[in-house]
Protein backbone atom coordinates (compact mmCIF):
# COMPACT_ATOMS: atom_id res chain seq x y z
CA UNK A 1 0.00 0.00 0.00
CA UNK A 2 2.84 2.37 0.90
CA UNK A 3 4.58 1.63 -2.40
CA UNK A 4 1.37 2.35 -4.32
CA UNK A 5 0.97 5.58 -2.36
CA UNK A 6 4.50 6.70 -3.23
CA UNK A 7 4.05 5.78 -6.89
CA UNK A 8 0.79 7.75 -7.06
CA UNK A 9 2.40 10.78 -5.43
CA UNK A 10 5.33 10.76 -7.86
CA UNK A 11 2.98 10.42 -10.83
CA UNK A 12 0.76 13.23 -9.57
CA UNK A 13 3.71 15.58 -9.03
CA UNK A 14 5.00 14.81 -12.53
CA UNK A 15 1.52 15.36 -13.99
CA UNK A 16 1.18 18.69 -12.16
CA UNK A 17 4.59 19.80 -13.45
CA UNK A 18 3.62 18.86 -17.02
CA UNK A 19 0.26 20.64 -16.67
CA UNK A 20 2.00 23.91 -15.70
CA UNK A 21 4.35 23.52 -18.69
CA UNK A 22 1.42 22.73 -21.00
CA UNK A 23 -0.50 25.79 -19.73
CA UNK A 24 2.51 28.03 -20.35
CA UNK A 25 3.01 26.61 -23.85
CA UNK A 26 -0.67 26.90 -24.70
CA UNK A 27 -1.07 30.49 -23.49
CA UNK A 28 2.25 31.39 -25.14
CA UNK A 29 0.94 29.78 -28.34
CA UNK A 30 -2.18 31.95 -28.12
CA UNK A 31 -0.05 35.09 -28.18
CA UNK A 32 2.19 33.81 -30.97
CA UNK A 33 -0.64 32.72 -33.22
CA UNK A 34 -2.60 35.93 -32.65
CA UNK A 35 0.24 38.37 -33.26
CA UNK A 36 2.77 36.51 -35.39
CA UNK A 37 0.46 34.50 -37.64
CA UNK A 38 -2.68 36.66 -37.33
CA UNK A 39 -4.60 33.45 -36.70
CA UNK A 40 -6.01 33.26 -33.14
CA UNK A 41 -6.45 29.79 -31.73
CA UNK A 42 -10.21 29.40 -31.36
CA UNK A 43 -9.86 26.23 -29.29
CA UNK A 44 -7.25 27.42 -26.81
CA UNK A 45 -9.74 28.81 -24.25
CA UNK A 46 -11.44 25.42 -23.90
CA UNK A 47 -8.16 23.57 -23.47
CA UNK A 48 -6.85 26.20 -21.02
CA UNK A 49 -9.92 25.72 -18.83
CA UNK A 50 -9.53 21.94 -18.93
CA UNK A 51 -5.83 22.12 -18.08
CA UNK A 52 -6.46 24.61 -15.27
CA UNK A 53 -9.14 22.43 -13.66
CA UNK A 54 -6.86 19.39 -13.96
CA UNK A 55 -3.90 21.33 -12.53
CA UNK A 56 -6.00 22.55 -9.60
CA UNK A 57 -7.00 19.09 -8.44
CA UNK A 58 -3.89 17.11 -9.43
CA UNK A 59 -1.49 19.64 -7.85
CA UNK A 60 -3.74 19.97 -4.78
CA UNK A 61 -3.54 16.19 -4.34
CA UNK A 62 0.26 16.32 -4.50
CA UNK A 63 0.33 19.23 -2.03
CA UNK A 64 -1.96 17.40 0.40
CA UNK A 65 0.39 14.40 0.37
CA UNK A 66 3.29 16.68 1.23
CA UNK A 67 1.22 18.26 4.02
CA UNK A 68 1.81 21.70 2.53
CA UNK A 69 -1.74 23.05 2.24
CA UNK A 70 -2.36 26.33 4.05
CA UNK A 71 -3.60 25.69 7.57
CA UNK A 72 -3.43 27.24 11.02
CA UNK A 73 -1.24 25.10 13.27
CA UNK A 74 -0.67 27.62 16.07
CA UNK A 75 -3.54 26.47 18.27
CA UNK A 76 -3.00 22.76 17.78
CA UNK A 77 0.68 23.15 18.65
CA UNK A 78 -0.26 24.69 22.01
CA UNK A 79 -2.37 21.67 23.09
CA UNK A 80 -0.98 18.91 25.35
CA UNK A 81 0.44 15.97 23.38
CA UNK A 82 -2.43 13.57 24.08
CA UNK A 83 -5.11 16.10 23.16
CA UNK A 84 -3.17 17.05 20.02
CA UNK A 85 -3.08 13.40 18.95
CA UNK A 86 -6.85 13.03 19.39
CA UNK A 87 -7.54 16.20 17.40
CA UNK A 88 -5.13 15.12 14.65
CA UNK A 89 -6.71 11.65 14.36
CA UNK A 90 -10.24 13.09 14.35
CA UNK A 91 -9.21 15.64 11.72
CA UNK A 92 -7.66 12.98 9.48
CA UNK A 93 -10.71 10.72 9.78
CA UNK A 94 -13.09 13.58 8.96
CA UNK A 95 -11.00 14.67 5.97
CA UNK A 96 -10.80 11.10 4.63
CA UNK A 97 -14.58 10.70 4.86
CA UNK A 98 -15.16 14.06 3.18
CA UNK A 99 -12.78 13.19 0.34
CA UNK A 100 -14.59 9.88 -0.22
CA UNK A 101 -17.92 11.73 -0.23
CA UNK A 102 -16.59 14.30 -2.69
CA UNK A 103 -15.33 11.49 -4.96
CA UNK A 104 -18.80 9.93 -4.89
CA UNK A 105 -20.61 13.20 -5.63
CA UNK A 106 -18.10 14.12 -8.33
CA UNK A 107 -18.83 10.74 -9.91
CA UNK A 108 -22.56 11.54 -9.84
CA UNK A 109 -21.75 14.88 -11.42
CA UNK A 110 -19.75 13.14 -14.16
CA UNK A 111 -22.72 10.92 -14.96
CA UNK A 112 -24.96 13.97 -15.05
CA UNK A 113 -22.73 15.58 -17.68
CA UNK A 114 -22.30 12.44 -19.79
CA UNK A 115 -22.89 13.11 -23.47
CA UNK A 116 -22.08 16.83 -23.26
CA UNK A 117 -18.88 18.20 -24.71
CA UNK A 118 -17.10 21.50 -25.33
CA UNK A 119 -18.10 23.33 -28.52
CA UNK A 120 -14.85 23.49 -30.48
CA UNK A 121 -12.60 20.69 -29.26
CA UNK A 122 -15.34 18.32 -28.19
CA UNK A 123 -13.72 17.61 -24.79
CA UNK A 124 -16.26 15.50 -22.86
CA UNK A 125 -17.52 17.68 -19.98
CA UNK A 126 -17.58 14.69 -17.65
CA UNK A 127 -13.80 14.32 -18.10
CA UNK A 128 -13.28 17.26 -15.72
CA UNK A 129 -15.44 15.56 -13.09
CA UNK A 130 -13.56 12.27 -13.56
CA UNK A 131 -10.27 14.09 -12.85
CA UNK A 132 -11.88 15.25 -9.61
CA UNK A 133 -13.09 11.72 -8.79
CA UNK A 134 -9.54 10.36 -9.17
CA UNK A 135 -7.97 13.18 -7.13
CA UNK A 136 -10.47 12.93 -4.26
CA UNK A 137 -9.98 9.14 -4.15
CA UNK A 138 -6.20 9.54 -4.13
CA UNK A 139 -6.46 12.12 -1.33
CA UNK A 140 -8.78 9.80 0.64
CA UNK A 141 -6.30 6.93 0.23
CA UNK A 142 -3.46 9.07 1.49
CA UNK A 143 -5.46 10.37 4.45
CA UNK A 144 -6.52 6.79 5.24
CA UNK A 145 -2.90 5.62 5.26
CA UNK A 146 -1.91 8.52 7.52
CA UNK A 147 -4.84 7.76 9.80
CA UNK A 148 -3.85 4.10 10.16
CA UNK A 149 -0.25 5.15 10.80
CA UNK A 150 -1.34 7.66 13.46
CA UNK A 151 -3.55 5.07 15.16
CA UNK A 152 -0.77 2.50 15.12
CA UNK A 153 1.79 4.92 16.56
CA UNK A 154 2.35 4.91 20.32
CA UNK A 155 0.60 7.83 22.07
Amino acid at each position, binding site marked *: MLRLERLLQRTEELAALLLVAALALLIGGQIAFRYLFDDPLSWSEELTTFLLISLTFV*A*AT*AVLKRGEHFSIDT*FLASLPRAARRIVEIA*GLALQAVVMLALAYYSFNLARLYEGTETVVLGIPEEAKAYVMVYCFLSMALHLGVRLVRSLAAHP
Partner: protein
Amino acid sequence: MEGIVFGLLLVVLFFANVPIAVTLLIATIGFILVSGDFPLEIVAQRMWGGVTSSILSAIPMYILAAILMNNMGVTERIFRFALALVGHLRGGLYYVNILASVIFSGMSGSNTADVAGLGKIEIKAMVDANYDRAYSAAVTAASSIIGPIIPPSIILVVYAQLASVSTGRLFLAGILPGLVMAACLSLIVFVLVRHRAAAGDPLPRATAGEVMRRARDGLFALIAPAIIVGGMTLGIVTPSEAGVLAVCYSLLLGVVYRSLSFRLLVKSLHEAALFSGAILLIIAASGAFGWAVNIMQVPEAVGDTIQAITDRPWLALLMINLGLLMLGCLEAGSAALVVVAPVLIYLGGLYGIDPVHLGIIAAINLTLGSMTPPVALSLFISARIAGVPMRAAVIASLPFFLALLASLLIVTFVPAFSLALPNWLMGS
Protein backbone atom coordinates in the same frame (compact mmCIF):
# COMPACT_ATOMS: atom_id res chain seq x y z
CA MET B 1 -29.48 26.20 12.77
CA GLU B 2 -27.53 25.58 9.55
CA GLY B 3 -25.75 28.90 10.11
CA ILE B 4 -24.60 27.82 13.58
CA VAL B 5 -23.32 24.47 12.27
CA PHE B 6 -21.56 26.26 9.40
CA GLY B 7 -19.86 28.75 11.74
CA LEU B 8 -18.95 26.14 14.34
CA LEU B 9 -17.37 23.85 11.76
CA LEU B 10 -15.35 26.75 10.38
CA VAL B 11 -13.98 27.80 13.77
CA VAL B 12 -13.31 24.29 15.11
CA LEU B 13 -11.63 23.04 11.94
CA PHE B 14 -9.53 26.19 11.48
CA PHE B 15 -8.19 25.69 14.98
CA ALA B 16 -7.74 21.94 14.46
CA ASN B 17 -5.13 22.54 11.73
CA VAL B 18 -7.36 21.14 8.98
CA PRO B 19 -6.29 22.72 5.64
CA ILE B 20 -8.22 25.94 4.92
CA ALA B 21 -9.60 24.61 1.62
CA VAL B 22 -10.89 21.41 3.25
CA THR B 23 -12.35 23.43 6.14
CA LEU B 24 -14.35 25.56 3.70
CA LEU B 25 -15.64 22.41 2.00
CA ILE B 26 -16.61 20.66 5.24
CA ALA B 27 -18.46 23.77 6.47
CA THR B 28 -20.36 23.92 3.17
CA ILE B 29 -21.21 20.20 3.36
CA GLY B 30 -22.37 20.70 6.98
CA PHE B 31 -24.64 23.54 5.86
CA ILE B 32 -26.17 21.44 3.06
CA LEU B 33 -26.72 18.42 5.33
CA VAL B 34 -28.46 20.46 8.02
CA SER B 35 -30.56 22.58 5.68
CA GLY B 36 -31.57 19.52 3.62
CA ASP B 37 -32.63 21.75 0.72
CA PHE B 38 -29.79 21.12 -1.71
CA PRO B 39 -28.08 18.08 -3.28
CA LEU B 40 -24.48 17.47 -2.19
CA GLU B 41 -23.41 17.29 -5.85
CA ILE B 42 -23.54 21.09 -5.74
CA VAL B 43 -20.26 21.14 -3.74
CA ALA B 44 -18.34 19.36 -6.51
CA GLN B 45 -20.08 21.43 -9.17
CA ARG B 46 -19.26 24.74 -7.45
CA MET B 47 -15.63 23.67 -6.93
CA TRP B 48 -15.30 22.95 -10.62
CA GLY B 49 -17.04 26.26 -11.39
CA GLY B 50 -14.66 28.09 -9.05
CA VAL B 51 -11.69 27.45 -11.34
CA THR B 52 -13.24 27.62 -14.80
CA SER B 53 -12.24 31.24 -15.42
CA SER B 54 -9.21 31.35 -17.68
CA ILE B 55 -8.02 34.50 -15.83
CA LEU B 56 -6.97 32.17 -13.02
CA SER B 57 -4.39 30.54 -15.27
CA ALA B 58 -2.43 33.75 -14.60
CA ILE B 59 -1.71 32.46 -11.07
CA PRO B 60 0.58 29.53 -11.99
CA MET B 61 2.27 31.74 -14.57
CA TYR B 62 3.10 34.54 -12.08
CA ILE B 63 4.30 31.94 -9.60
CA LEU B 64 6.48 30.27 -12.23
CA ALA B 65 7.98 33.62 -13.32
CA ALA B 66 8.89 34.51 -9.70
CA ILE B 67 10.37 31.07 -9.00
CA LEU B 68 12.43 31.20 -12.21
CA MET B 69 13.74 34.66 -11.24
CA ASN B 70 14.74 33.35 -7.82
CA ASN B 71 16.30 30.13 -9.09
CA MET B 72 18.25 31.82 -11.90
CA GLY B 73 19.90 34.40 -9.71
CA VAL B 74 17.99 37.41 -11.05
CA THR B 75 17.09 38.35 -7.47
CA GLU B 76 20.78 38.56 -6.60
CA ARG B 77 21.31 41.04 -9.43
CA ILE B 78 18.37 43.11 -8.21
CA PHE B 79 19.95 43.17 -4.76
CA ARG B 80 23.32 44.29 -6.15
CA PHE B 81 21.60 47.04 -8.16
CA ALA B 82 19.82 48.34 -5.06
CA LEU B 83 23.06 48.05 -3.10
CA ALA B 84 24.91 50.21 -5.64
CA LEU B 85 22.19 52.85 -5.40
CA VAL B 86 21.55 53.23 -1.66
CA GLY B 87 23.92 50.85 0.13
CA HIS B 88 26.28 53.65 1.25
CA LEU B 89 23.61 55.48 3.31
CA ARG B 90 23.51 55.16 7.10
CA GLY B 91 21.65 51.90 7.68
CA GLY B 92 21.94 51.50 3.91
CA LEU B 93 21.13 47.78 3.82
CA TYR B 94 17.68 48.49 5.26
CA TYR B 95 17.00 50.82 2.32
CA VAL B 96 18.53 48.26 -0.05
CA ASN B 97 16.14 45.69 1.40
CA ILE B 98 13.12 47.93 0.72
CA LEU B 99 14.24 49.05 -2.75
CA ALA B 100 15.09 45.49 -3.84
CA SER B 101 11.63 44.35 -2.69
CA VAL B 102 9.98 47.11 -4.72
CA ILE B 103 11.87 46.02 -7.84
CA PHE B 104 11.23 42.33 -7.19
CA SER B 105 7.53 43.12 -6.63
CA GLY B 106 7.33 43.97 -10.28
CA MET B 107 8.09 40.36 -11.16
CA SER B 108 6.64 38.38 -8.31
CA GLY B 109 3.04 38.23 -7.14
CA SER B 110 3.79 36.63 -3.81
CA ASN B 111 5.46 37.87 -0.64
CA THR B 112 6.74 34.44 0.35
CA ALA B 113 8.68 34.27 -2.94
CA ASP B 114 10.27 37.59 -1.90
CA VAL B 115 11.25 36.44 1.61
CA ALA B 116 12.42 32.99 0.60
CA GLY B 117 14.43 34.19 -2.43
CA LEU B 118 15.52 37.78 -2.06
CA GLY B 119 15.30 37.59 1.75
CA LYS B 120 18.07 35.00 1.95
CA ILE B 121 20.49 37.26 0.06
CA GLU B 122 19.46 40.39 1.97
CA ILE B 123 19.68 38.89 5.45
CA LYS B 124 23.05 37.27 4.74
CA ALA B 125 24.44 40.64 3.59
CA MET B 126 22.99 42.38 6.66
CA VAL B 127 24.37 39.80 9.09
CA ASP B 128 27.79 39.95 7.38
CA ALA B 129 27.77 43.75 7.81
CA ASN B 130 26.96 43.39 11.55
CA TYR B 131 23.37 44.61 11.29
CA ASP B 132 21.02 43.68 14.10
CA ARG B 133 19.69 40.22 13.22
CA ALA B 134 16.18 40.78 14.58
CA TYR B 135 15.75 44.06 12.70
CA SER B 136 17.19 42.43 9.59
CA ALA B 137 14.54 39.71 9.77
CA ALA B 138 11.82 42.26 10.54
CA VAL B 139 12.61 44.64 7.67
CA THR B 140 12.82 41.70 5.23
CA ALA B 141 9.37 40.47 6.25
CA ALA B 142 7.95 44.01 6.19
CA SER B 143 9.33 44.91 2.77
CA SER B 144 8.03 41.64 1.33
CA ILE B 145 4.50 42.86 2.07
CA ILE B 146 4.92 45.25 -0.87
CA GLY B 147 5.23 42.20 -3.20
CA PRO B 148 1.54 41.41 -3.66
CA ILE B 149 0.53 45.09 -3.89
CA ILE B 150 2.73 46.17 -6.79
CA PRO B 151 1.73 44.18 -9.89
CA PRO B 152 1.77 41.36 -10.75
CA SER B 153 -0.15 40.09 -7.75
CA ILE B 154 -1.77 36.75 -7.03
CA ILE B 155 -4.12 38.15 -4.39
CA LEU B 156 -5.30 40.85 -6.81
CA VAL B 157 -6.00 38.25 -9.52
CA VAL B 158 -8.05 36.29 -6.97
CA TYR B 159 -9.93 39.46 -5.96
CA ALA B 160 -10.52 40.37 -9.62
CA GLN B 161 -12.08 36.96 -10.14
CA LEU B 162 -14.24 37.08 -6.99
CA ALA B 163 -15.39 40.69 -7.37
CA SER B 164 -15.64 40.70 -11.19
CA VAL B 165 -13.25 43.64 -11.43
CA SER B 166 -10.77 44.29 -14.25
CA THR B 167 -7.38 42.78 -13.39
CA GLY B 168 -5.67 45.54 -15.40
CA ARG B 169 -7.33 48.27 -13.29
CA LEU B 170 -6.41 46.48 -10.07
CA PHE B 171 -2.81 46.05 -11.16
CA LEU B 172 -2.51 49.74 -12.01
CA ALA B 173 -4.21 50.62 -8.72
CA GLY B 174 -1.57 48.73 -6.75
CA ILE B 175 1.45 50.68 -8.02
CA LEU B 176 1.13 53.93 -6.00
CA PRO B 177 0.01 52.24 -2.75
CA GLY B 178 3.06 49.94 -3.05
CA LEU B 179 5.31 52.98 -3.36
CA VAL B 180 3.55 54.63 -0.39
CA MET B 181 4.32 51.52 1.66
CA ALA B 182 7.98 51.65 0.59
CA ALA B 183 8.14 55.36 1.49
CA CYS B 184 6.65 54.76 4.97
CA LEU B 185 9.08 51.89 5.59
CA SER B 186 12.02 54.05 4.48
CA LEU B 187 10.88 56.82 6.80
CA ILE B 188 10.80 54.49 9.79
CA VAL B 189 14.26 53.17 8.86
CA PHE B 190 15.52 56.78 8.71
CA VAL B 191 14.23 57.36 12.25
CA LEU B 192 15.36 53.97 13.53
CA VAL B 193 19.00 54.19 12.46
CA ARG B 194 19.31 57.59 14.13
CA HIS B 195 17.88 56.57 17.48
CA ARG B 196 18.99 52.97 17.91
CA ALA B 197 22.12 51.02 17.28
CA ALA B 198 20.38 49.04 14.57
CA ALA B 199 22.65 49.93 11.64
CA GLY B 200 25.73 47.83 10.91
CA ASP B 201 29.07 48.68 9.34
CA PRO B 202 28.94 51.53 6.79
CA LEU B 203 29.44 50.42 3.20
CA PRO B 204 31.53 52.28 0.63
CA ARG B 205 29.74 54.37 -1.98
CA ALA B 206 29.64 52.58 -5.34
CA THR B 207 31.62 54.18 -8.16
CA ALA B 208 29.74 55.65 -11.12
CA GLY B 209 30.95 52.77 -13.29
CA GLU B 210 29.72 50.21 -10.79
CA VAL B 211 26.32 51.92 -10.56
CA MET B 212 26.05 51.85 -14.35
CA ARG B 213 26.98 48.17 -14.48
CA ARG B 214 24.47 47.26 -11.78
CA ALA B 215 21.86 49.53 -13.35
CA ARG B 216 22.03 47.48 -16.53
CA ASP B 217 21.04 44.38 -14.55
CA GLY B 218 18.45 46.31 -12.58
CA LEU B 219 17.01 47.77 -15.73
CA PHE B 220 16.47 44.28 -17.15
CA ALA B 221 14.53 43.47 -14.00
CA LEU B 222 12.48 46.68 -14.18
CA ILE B 223 11.28 45.78 -17.68
CA ALA B 224 9.20 42.85 -16.33
CA PRO B 225 6.45 44.96 -14.68
CA ALA B 226 6.39 47.18 -17.74
CA ILE B 227 5.68 44.11 -19.90
CA ILE B 228 2.98 42.82 -17.57
CA VAL B 229 1.13 46.03 -16.72
CA GLY B 230 1.82 47.75 -20.03
CA GLY B 231 0.65 44.76 -22.05
CA MET B 232 -2.57 44.49 -20.06
CA THR B 233 -3.31 48.22 -19.93
CA LEU B 234 -2.84 48.59 -23.66
CA GLY B 235 -5.14 45.63 -24.21
CA ILE B 236 -2.43 43.67 -26.01
CA VAL B 237 -2.53 40.67 -23.70
CA THR B 238 -4.85 39.14 -21.10
CA PRO B 239 -3.66 38.71 -17.45
CA SER B 240 -2.66 35.09 -18.05
CA GLU B 241 -0.88 35.97 -21.29
CA ALA B 242 0.99 38.69 -19.40
CA GLY B 243 2.03 35.96 -16.95
CA VAL B 244 3.43 33.85 -19.78
CA LEU B 245 5.28 36.88 -21.14
CA ALA B 246 6.84 37.28 -17.68
CA VAL B 247 7.83 33.59 -17.78
CA CYS B 248 9.36 34.02 -21.27
CA TYR B 249 11.17 37.13 -20.07
CA SER B 250 12.54 35.24 -17.04
CA LEU B 251 13.79 32.49 -19.36
CA LEU B 252 15.37 35.08 -21.63
CA LEU B 253 17.18 36.59 -18.63
CA GLY B 254 18.31 33.08 -17.71
CA VAL B 255 19.81 32.69 -21.19
CA VAL B 256 21.45 36.15 -21.06
CA TYR B 257 22.89 35.50 -17.58
CA ARG B 258 23.78 31.89 -18.56
CA SER B 259 22.05 30.53 -15.48
CA LEU B 260 19.27 28.60 -17.23
CA SER B 261 19.51 24.81 -17.40
CA PHE B 262 17.03 22.04 -18.10
CA ARG B 263 17.35 20.78 -14.53
CA LEU B 264 16.62 24.24 -13.13
CA LEU B 265 13.62 24.61 -15.43
CA VAL B 266 12.17 21.30 -14.25
CA LYS B 267 12.83 22.24 -10.61
CA SER B 268 11.08 25.59 -11.12
CA LEU B 269 8.09 23.96 -12.85
CA HIS B 270 7.83 21.47 -9.97
CA GLU B 271 7.89 24.22 -7.32
CA ALA B 272 5.39 26.33 -9.29
CA ALA B 273 3.00 23.38 -9.68
CA LEU B 274 2.98 22.69 -5.94
CA PHE B 275 2.58 26.32 -4.92
CA SER B 276 -0.21 26.76 -7.49
CA GLY B 277 -2.00 23.65 -6.22
CA ALA B 278 -2.19 25.06 -2.70
CA ILE B 279 -3.71 28.35 -3.90
CA LEU B 280 -5.98 26.98 -6.62
CA LEU B 281 -7.63 24.42 -4.30
CA ILE B 282 -8.62 27.25 -1.96
CA ILE B 283 -10.12 29.14 -4.90
CA ALA B 284 -11.98 26.01 -6.01
CA ALA B 285 -13.29 25.50 -2.46
CA SER B 286 -14.32 29.16 -2.35
CA GLY B 287 -16.70 28.44 -5.24
CA ALA B 288 -18.72 26.17 -2.91
CA PHE B 289 -18.11 28.23 0.23
CA GLY B 290 -19.14 31.53 -1.41
CA TRP B 291 -22.32 29.91 -2.66
CA ALA B 292 -23.24 28.77 0.88
CA VAL B 293 -22.40 32.19 2.36
CA ASN B 294 -24.64 33.88 -0.18
CA ILE B 295 -27.51 31.41 0.33
CA MET B 296 -27.37 32.14 4.07
CA GLN B 297 -27.32 35.88 3.29
CA VAL B 298 -24.28 36.37 5.49
CA PRO B 299 -23.08 39.49 3.60
CA GLU B 300 -26.48 41.14 4.09
CA ALA B 301 -26.48 40.28 7.82
CA VAL B 302 -22.97 41.70 8.34
CA GLY B 303 -23.87 44.73 6.21
CA ASP B 304 -27.03 45.40 8.26
CA THR B 305 -25.04 45.13 11.50
CA ILE B 306 -22.40 47.59 10.36
CA GLN B 307 -25.05 49.90 8.94
CA ALA B 308 -26.84 49.87 12.30
CA ILE B 309 -23.59 51.14 13.87
CA THR B 310 -22.74 53.76 11.27
CA ASP B 311 -23.81 55.12 7.91
CA ARG B 312 -20.52 56.98 7.41
CA PRO B 313 -18.30 55.36 4.78
CA TRP B 314 -15.06 56.40 6.53
CA LEU B 315 -16.10 54.71 9.76
CA ALA B 316 -17.24 51.65 7.83
CA LEU B 317 -13.83 51.61 6.10
CA LEU B 318 -12.13 51.75 9.49
CA MET B 319 -14.23 48.81 10.70
CA ILE B 320 -13.48 46.90 7.49
CA ASN B 321 -9.76 47.51 8.04
CA LEU B 322 -9.97 46.33 11.62
CA GLY B 323 -11.88 43.19 10.69
CA LEU B 324 -9.48 42.38 7.85
CA LEU B 325 -6.43 42.94 10.04
CA MET B 326 -7.82 40.58 12.66
CA LEU B 327 -8.59 37.98 10.00
CA GLY B 328 -5.12 38.48 8.53
CA CYS B 329 -3.60 37.60 11.89
CA LEU B 330 -5.20 34.15 11.60
CA GLU B 331 -4.72 33.54 7.91
CA ALA B 332 -2.98 35.80 5.43
CA GLY B 333 -3.28 36.36 1.71
CA SER B 334 -5.56 34.79 -0.85
CA ALA B 335 -6.86 32.13 1.55
CA ALA B 336 -8.27 34.78 3.88
CA LEU B 337 -9.56 36.86 0.98
CA VAL B 338 -11.59 33.94 -0.32
CA VAL B 339 -13.29 33.58 3.07
CA VAL B 340 -14.19 37.23 3.45
CA ALA B 341 -14.78 38.27 -0.19
CA PRO B 342 -18.58 37.88 -0.35
CA VAL B 343 -19.03 40.11 2.72
CA LEU B 344 -16.43 42.59 1.55
CA ILE B 345 -17.93 43.03 -1.91
CA TYR B 346 -21.42 43.49 -0.44
CA LEU B 347 -20.15 46.11 2.04
CA GLY B 348 -18.36 47.94 -0.76
CA GLY B 349 -21.61 48.23 -2.69
CA LEU B 350 -23.52 49.27 0.44
CA TYR B 351 -21.19 52.17 1.26
CA GLY B 352 -20.39 53.13 -2.32
CA ILE B 353 -16.71 52.21 -2.00
CA ASP B 354 -15.01 51.70 -5.35
CA PRO B 355 -14.36 47.94 -5.74
CA VAL B 356 -10.85 48.60 -7.09
CA HIS B 357 -10.01 50.75 -4.06
CA LEU B 358 -11.52 48.12 -1.78
CA GLY B 359 -9.44 45.42 -3.47
CA ILE B 360 -6.21 47.27 -2.71
CA ILE B 361 -7.27 47.88 0.91
CA ALA B 362 -8.10 44.19 1.32
CA ALA B 363 -4.83 43.11 -0.29
CA ILE B 364 -2.72 45.28 2.04
CA ASN B 365 -4.63 44.23 5.16
CA LEU B 366 -4.53 40.54 4.42
CA THR B 367 -0.90 40.54 3.31
CA LEU B 368 0.03 42.33 6.53
CA GLY B 369 -1.10 39.13 8.25
CA SER B 370 2.15 37.61 6.97
CA MET B 371 4.02 39.55 9.64
CA THR B 372 1.52 39.47 12.50
CA PRO B 373 1.39 36.54 14.94
CA PRO B 374 0.16 33.90 15.36
CA VAL B 375 0.58 33.00 11.65
CA ALA B 376 3.24 35.54 10.49
CA LEU B 377 4.58 33.29 7.73
CA SER B 378 6.94 35.88 6.18
CA LEU B 379 8.34 36.85 9.57
CA PHE B 380 8.71 33.21 10.50
CA ILE B 381 10.75 32.51 7.34
CA SER B 382 12.92 35.61 7.73
CA ALA B 383 13.52 34.94 11.45
CA ARG B 384 14.64 31.42 10.56
CA ILE B 385 17.01 32.71 7.88
CA ALA B 386 18.41 35.32 10.30
CA GLY B 387 18.72 32.76 13.07
CA VAL B 388 16.80 34.77 15.66
CA PRO B 389 14.00 33.62 17.97
CA MET B 390 10.52 34.46 16.68
CA ARG B 391 9.83 36.56 19.80
CA ALA B 392 12.77 38.88 19.04
CA ALA B 393 11.69 39.18 15.41
CA VAL B 394 8.11 40.04 16.44
CA ILE B 395 9.32 42.81 18.78
CA ALA B 396 11.70 44.19 16.14
CA SER B 397 8.93 44.14 13.54
CA LEU B 398 6.72 46.51 15.55
CA PRO B 399 8.05 49.81 14.08
CA PHE B 400 7.84 48.41 10.56
CA PHE B 401 4.34 47.15 11.19
CA LEU B 402 3.31 50.62 12.39
CA ALA B 403 4.83 52.15 9.24
CA LEU B 404 2.83 49.76 7.07
CA LEU B 405 -0.28 50.48 9.13
CA ALA B 406 0.23 54.20 8.47
CA SER B 407 0.52 53.50 4.74
CA LEU B 408 -2.66 51.42 4.92
CA LEU B 409 -4.53 54.35 6.49
CA ILE B 410 -3.16 56.74 3.84
CA VAL B 411 -4.28 54.42 1.05
CA THR B 412 -7.65 53.85 2.73
CA PHE B 413 -8.54 57.49 3.22
CA VAL B 414 -6.94 58.93 0.09
CA PRO B 415 -8.57 56.82 -2.65
CA ALA B 416 -6.67 58.78 -5.28
CA PHE B 417 -3.58 56.71 -4.48
CA SER B 418 -5.43 53.63 -5.73
CA LEU B 419 -7.68 55.16 -8.36
CA ALA B 420 -5.64 57.91 -10.02
CA LEU B 421 -3.54 55.63 -12.24
CA PRO B 422 -6.33 53.32 -13.47
CA ASN B 423 -8.68 56.27 -14.03
CA TRP B 424 -6.00 58.18 -15.89
CA LEU B 425 -4.82 55.32 -18.09
CA MET B 426 -8.01 53.30 -18.52
CA GLY B 427 -10.73 55.92 -18.00
CA SER B 428 -12.93 56.29 -14.93
